């Protein structure tokens, strides 16, 4: 009994030593620890993306789960990377703004192009979060109604009031993908 328990504990210790994240198609094996390049148990995914992996396209604004700037796509859903512990994302597939362009041709995602075409931003800080939220929506529902777009984006704040252009941009892609 006692022996079995020790083995189990040891196995658990081994398992939690490192985590694997698949981000934008690339596999990252990250050790848990406090050394450079390692992930601490109390790191949020947004911290890891920006500080450990240098993927600074994901923005951090409120860090409270209220603004949507840190949105990434995990397992197909738009989620807030500031409200996730990195260690709890072990084994997950994550897409950030850096992963939207075509890996082979380098061509921008249609949403990214549309945001440029419609100048759907001013300062641009909320834009990665907006685009990731819209991408998750279009992946699930390629031709949403305008109301559905508004609903999906209701957790993305923009202080420059870019929302009107954002909706136009997304609707333009929605119509194309239809």
């Amino acid at each position, binding site marked *: 009994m006692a022996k079995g328990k020790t083995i189990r504990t040891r196995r*658990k210790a081994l398992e*939690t030593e490192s985590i694997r994240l698949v981000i934008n198609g690339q596999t990252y094996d990250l050790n848990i620890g406090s050394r450079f390049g390692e992930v*601490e*148990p*109390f790191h*949020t995914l947004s911290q890891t993306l920006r500080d450990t992996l240098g993927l600074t396209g994901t923005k951090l604004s409120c*860090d*409270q*789960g*209220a603004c*949507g700037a840190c*949105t990434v796509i995990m397992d197909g*859903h*738009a*989620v*807030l990377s*500031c*409200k*996730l*512990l990195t*260690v*709890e994302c072990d084994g997950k597939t994550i897409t950030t703004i850096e992963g939207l362009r075509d890996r082979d041709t380098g061509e921008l995602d249609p949403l990214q192009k549309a945001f440029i075409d419609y100048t759907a931003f001013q300062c641009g800080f909320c834009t990665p979060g907006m685009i990731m*939220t819209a991408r998750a929506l279009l992946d699930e529902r390629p031709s949403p109604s305008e109301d559905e777009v508004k*609903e*999906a984006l*209701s*957790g993305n*704040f923009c202080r420059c009031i870019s929302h009107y252009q954002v909706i136009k941009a997304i609707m333009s892609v929605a119509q194309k993908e239809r």
Partner: protein
Amino acid sequence: MKPFVHRNARSIGEAVRLLAKYNGRAKVNAGGTDLLGVMRDRITVDYPEAVINLKRIEGLDQIKPDSKGIRIGALAKLADVANSPDVKEEYRLLAESAYSVASPHVRNMATVGGNLAQDVRCWYYRYPRRIGGPIICLRKGGKVCSALPGDNRYHSVFGAAPLRTYPCSSYCPAETDIPAYLSKVRKGDLADAARILIEYNPLAAITGRVCPVFCEPECNRGGFDEPVAIQCIERGVGDYVLEHMATYFAPPEQQTGKKVAIVGSGPAGLAAAYYLRKSGHEITVYERFTKPGGMLRYSIPSFRLPKNVLEKQIDALERMGVTFKCDVEVGKAIALSNLQERHDAVLLTQGTWKSLKLNVPGEESEGVHYALDYLAKVSRKEKVSLGRNVVVIGGGSVAIDVARTARRLGAAEVRVICLECRDPNSKDKMLAQEREIVEAEEEGIIILPSLGVQAILAKDGRAIGIETVTCLSVREPDGSFNPLYDTTCTALTLDADSIIIAIGQSAEASVAPQTAPGRLFTAGDMVSGPSTVVQAVAGARKAVGEIESALRWTDSVESLPAGQAETRRRSDETDMYFTDSSFDETRRVQGSSRPAGERMGGINIEDTSGLTAEEIEREAHRCFNCGCLAVGPSDVAVALVALNASIVTTKRRITADRFFRASATSSTILEPDELIREIRVPKPPAGARQRYDKFTLRKPIDFALVSVASVLTVKDGMCKDVRIVLGAVGPSPIRAFAAEEMLKGKPISEAVAAEAAAAAVAGVMPLGMNAYKIQIAKALVKRAILGQPVS
């Protein structure tokens, strides 16, 4: 975030084991949308040592309809609940409530279980560092809810979540449920207040006059302006009890046939007589003096405790059927063994009547008196001539009582000398209450502190004065008595016509209880050493508990009042169990002392007047009735109560209305090692109108200001059945029973809806800034009944 240990639980069993292992020092993480913010902002008092991840537990996110209703796993995401065709189809209210939470991103992450167990939203609680310095609110282990006197626009209009212990009650030796009886006084219900108070203290008219008030210094109101004048209220209620003694001291309905003898009729004896008689035993109280009352009669002067109050108290007990046998000294006139033979139990409450001696030269001289003898003689109206110049030795209440008595009886010069210093904040402070000392000084009594008596000077066998040395220190830092003197020189030599020694008392050795198996009990000062009336009452209640269990009559009486108090707080008229916290800016009123000149008129004029019923009612309004005024934050919770759902935890299955019983530290009844496993929602009546209406300021971040969950069955325009639950207006969801009753069987109309809306908010107790919630709640309820859109 600060560091913590991270553990992944693979099963709910493992999660519970880990929780138990960390014993309150771990948190579970389901969705993380609430917890990570709480941890990042360090909202809770204790930062968790470990975080246990629940995300890897499989099979807890199912949404499964069955024949009885629907079962939803604790880890089901709010987005999945809101979008589930099964939920939307038949449990629209639940879908709407889940959908109303925050933003789509949050709903993609947050779970049902996490939503139900989330921490409250309150400015004082969540952002203490951002609103002008740290605020340690009640929920954080502080003493008071800052929302009561502060900004309370987002707080409860239905009272506060109760504390487990109240400072006033916990410092009262008798553990009197002060907030409970003050609540009744506040409502003008003295009868109920009396019923509560007498349970803890049958001598309230007496303690209301002479108690050194352990409670008031602890009162949380003291941090705002001045403590509530609890003693004055107690005195008012205590007098009410005696005025209505026929009600409160009625003979017991059932007799047990057991006989108990009580030896001594001081406060402990009287209190024990009350409790024992109340449970139907036959009680005889033996008193060696000519009249009952013990120290109450023979030691406490009538200007503090008028004799007629004591007489009424004894009358009341006689009315209950307690027999007093005076002038019978047990051990002399009657043997203790004789009493034991004739009774099922004997309780000794003989007090401490032996005066301590100074043990200095000259103590045997004529003109040297001991405090208790002197006070007893005065009580018996015996004449004691002290002369015009009196020195009292001692720094406690008895010394002050003696000095004031002597002064009132004509001594021109009365001086009190004591070892202690005059500074009320020193470790060496006098034991008498500050108020008594000040009043004595007003009466012309001179206090000479920090002096130790070295000798009593005598001439021809008669005392003529005292010689003293300076006392440098009275107590050790730990409080133990160890006086240090400067004996290098004499400090002060005083002339005196007589000297009264009041340095303490002890039990008379002769009454040391002979051991008799299981039938002899003791209580009061003879157990505790010289103490106070309220401590004697507490000691009596404890002894009565022992006697009752020895007689195998009931379980311990002592545990009874506390248990009842909890029920009382919870079982008021409706299902409400919150405390009616209040904040009233009026100033403290308390009984005023007569001017010193009037007080000197004699020893039978009561110094301090009582308050009128109106005044104590007003003063009771000053009681904060401490509790946490934060509102329950969960939207799903409100829907679950309306849908009559149950919550299945790792320990039990419980209905939603009982699950969200908030206390001042938690929004649910979950224990530290208990987890929500799933929710079960029974099928609402076919065709019932369900809706969740939520009024907020900014949707993605703010929580409801008011929400209303309703399930309404209407047939042919008539309301057949209805459940209405209000959210964000109380510490937990508030079921609008009155509105439901009102609606059932009525045709739905504008007028009926308005009436039901008014009934839904009946009994509200709005705070300074949140009465607007009442209007919103009424509007939402009305629209829900009429089926109108919210906006």
